[in-house]
């Protein structure tokens, strides 16, 4: 029984890892295609209209608000330890929580002490 199961397990391992690698390799191809096919063409810049006075005013206010919001967010989040690229990887909550572990040695301190 065990011997038979072991053979089955070995078969599953060989076929399974083969399938996983096969599917992943396929994904590699698909991803390469995808990125290449959807690459932005360079001539798209001039489409942006010039801001008018009213729009500028709105943009200024938006900027002020964005700064305030960013400050608020920063205070809530952990400080970044790594040089983080523009894309927000760190948004995952687990990232924040698990990342703390890396910084920490020993048991957690009671903040009231």
């Amino acid at each position, binding site marked *: 029984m065990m011997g038979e199961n072991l053979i*089955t397990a070995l078969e*599953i*391992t060989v076929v399974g890892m083969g399938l996983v690698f096969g599917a992943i390799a396929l994904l590699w191809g698909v991803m390469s295609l995808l990125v290449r096919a959807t690459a932005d063409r360079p001539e798209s810049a001039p489409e942006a209209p010039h801001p008018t006075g009213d729009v500028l005013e709105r943009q200024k206010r938006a900027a002020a608000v964005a700064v305030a919001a960013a400050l608020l967010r920063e205070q809530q989040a952990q400080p970044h330890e790594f040089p983080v690229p523009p894309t927000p*990887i760190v948004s995952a909550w687990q990232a924040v929580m698990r*990342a703390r*572990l890396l910084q920490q040695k020993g048991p957690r301190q009671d903040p009231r002490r």
Partner: protein
Amino acid sequence: MFSSDLWPELSKGLANFTPGNAVMIAAGLVLIALAVLKEYEPVLLLPIGFGCILANIPLTGMLDDHGLFGVLYNAGISNELFPLLIFVGVGAMIDFSPLLSQPKLVLLGAAGQFGIFGTLILATLLRFPLNEAASIGVIGAIDGPTSIYVATKLAPDLLAPIAVAAYSYMSLVPIIQPPVMKLLTTRQERRIRMEYAPRPVSRRALILFPIVVTLVIGLLVPDATPLISMLMLGNLLRESRVVERLTRAAENEIINVATLFLGLTVGSTMTAASFLRLDTIQILILGLLAFVLDTAAGLLFGKLMARVSGGKINPLIGAAGISAFPMAGRLAAQVAQDEDFENFILMHAMGANTAGQLGSVMAGGVLLALVTAMM
């Protein structure tokens, strides 16, 4: 009449309390302590620990079919609803652009799944039947919802130890992985710097990616479709940028509530009767081996890629291919930086890490399909 009849009724709680219950309550306290003092995966270990304590208080009726845990089990575990909802939320929080800008890193997500199959073999050697051995192996997916999903389908009786192993060891990744990393890589390899000149990824690519992955994996591995499609649904909500309400719901309400209920309910399966068995100890040991095997396979494949690429790839990022998103990615980058303070490989490690997330789900589905076909 009254007092003589009443005493048994009043003391029934204490009278039915067993040493096994005490042991399990202690185990629940340990999980809570890990959550609170060490902040190890607290959103899961705390509810699991609390659920475990409650399951070992006698005669509360909470485990009955109409008790709280019976209701939650039927509402979201036996039909796999909670893990799937969690995946919608996780998908809404994953950024695949580091992976899309360096597509070849996706291969590391395949290598990091070897632990699943290696552990399956080891479990078979310990005479676990095939369905149980496979469920134990899937601890090596190093991804909570995948482990719970597959275990519920193949061997629901082992759900408790498998879930506990998956989440506990996942929280211990920063302790489990570094020794393996140091053992299998040379100092020189760990100091390899990687160029970061990623191909720009358009918004269209980011939107099409979840749809294409769903179709490709869905058609090739139907058993992985529920998991992968919910992960990709969350990601599509996020990247589409036109359904902010739904994205917010996915990454807040849905995942938070599902996580709390999942943790409590999984914890409630940790009754003394079902948990205090030789099996459990074997599963906990096998689970640890699964993590080590995954890491080793990822590192070795990383070394192969380093060799093939002519030393342009730091093998440490192979360790991020195990999944344990996003912890393993950050850890690999940290270990590299520990050797050389100016060595930043975070983006590559995160690419490998998201590849590991995809690979884990796929491997879970493949395993499910193969074992179902074999049985």
